[in-house]
């Protein structure tokens, strides 16, 4: 096992931990806003760790740049959709009982 393998394993484990935390939050948090918070924040960090691991495993700068772009757009999409969903959730709460 080389140092790269070790680093990739560690990064993947960290990513998995954050994904698990985000999923637990999604399932256990009481309302829409905090669930969104768990999903977008924890999962994006998790994706970041997995992306780092993938880039390291590949060992090429061009591929790393592509993976970084993927991560960036994933964050952007998550932020935008979380905003929109939170707005709808708040409206639903306002209209509801």
């Amino acid at each position, binding site marked *: 096992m080389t140092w790269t393998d070790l680093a990739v394993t560690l990064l993947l484990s960290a990513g998995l931990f954050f994904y698990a935390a985000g999923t637990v939050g999604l399932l256990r948090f009481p309302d829409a806003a905090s669930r969104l918070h768990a999903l977008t924040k924890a999962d994006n960090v998790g994706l970041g760790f997995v992306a780092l691991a993938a880039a390291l495993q590949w060992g090429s700068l061009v591929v790393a740049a592509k993976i970084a772009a993927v991560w960036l*757009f994933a964050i952007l999409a998550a932020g*935008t959709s979380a*905003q*929109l969903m939170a*707005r*709808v959730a708040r409206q639903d709460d306002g209209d509801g009982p």
Partner: protein
Amino acid sequence: MTATFELILCVMILGTACVALFVRDFLTAIAFFVVFGNLLGLAWLAMGAVNVALAEIAIGAGVTGVLLVLTRSRLLALGEEIACGPARPWLRLGAAAACSAFTTLLAAAVLSIAPGDDLAPVVDGLMPRIGLDNPVTGVLMAFRAYDTLLESFVLLGALVAVWSLAPPAAWPQPPVALRMADPAALNVAGSFGRLLLPVALVMAAYLVWVGSDRPGGAFQGGTVLAGGFLLAAMGGAIGLPRSDDPRLRWALVAGPLVFLAIGLAGAATGRFLAYPDGTAKALIVTIEYVLAFSIGVTLALLVAGPPARAGTGP
């Protein structure tokens, strides 16, 4: 290890399909359908079919999911209930029995066929002649170009059929606007769409270009383009065109027409849809770029739906 992964993947595919089919709430069903599509994409990746994985995730999960969500909200706006009561027990039992029997037959048929890539060496042997490295693009654009040409006309025909469903007096107005009603949400979606439309253009061009040698191609690129158009339309960054706009008409037919023209030119020099030696790659890339643009516009308008009377917003 691989076997375990694939087994878990298959169980998850079947599980999400069950939820998408039989859950009571339709929005949940659509969400699970999109997850199902993405898992299928993973299955294609596990098989090494990256081209199909891209198409499945972009078209099967993405565009189909958007279509279902939009139709659901349109039906809800019309006051229609989508949740349907459970079917009669005897019908459910009968359907389950019949479908299990059918599945068993199908599984027996599947097991009687030995999986194998018999045609891969054949295709590989032919690839140097057209100068591409991605065998799937080779099959789509050269060896089975006939299929792909007809498919591009099928897409166009589907759009014509969708347009023919326009209510009286609506022709040739634009479709129901996709822009979000809530001003704050429109603001958020607008900045996202304005940022993503140019990115989608670059991404689509890249996918088509790289599709000659590595996974990608006209359909994947065109779908990314359609996604960019739709996001921009939802954010109000672009409006939807009237159905009789001549520029729109040209954008829709350009791809199939260029494909057909090059095919007919091939017929003049030899065989229909045969590319002269040495020009194959240039012709294929030309067709693919025009085709990807037309596919992007067609898919976006397919999602937007038929022309609607002015003032019938969502």
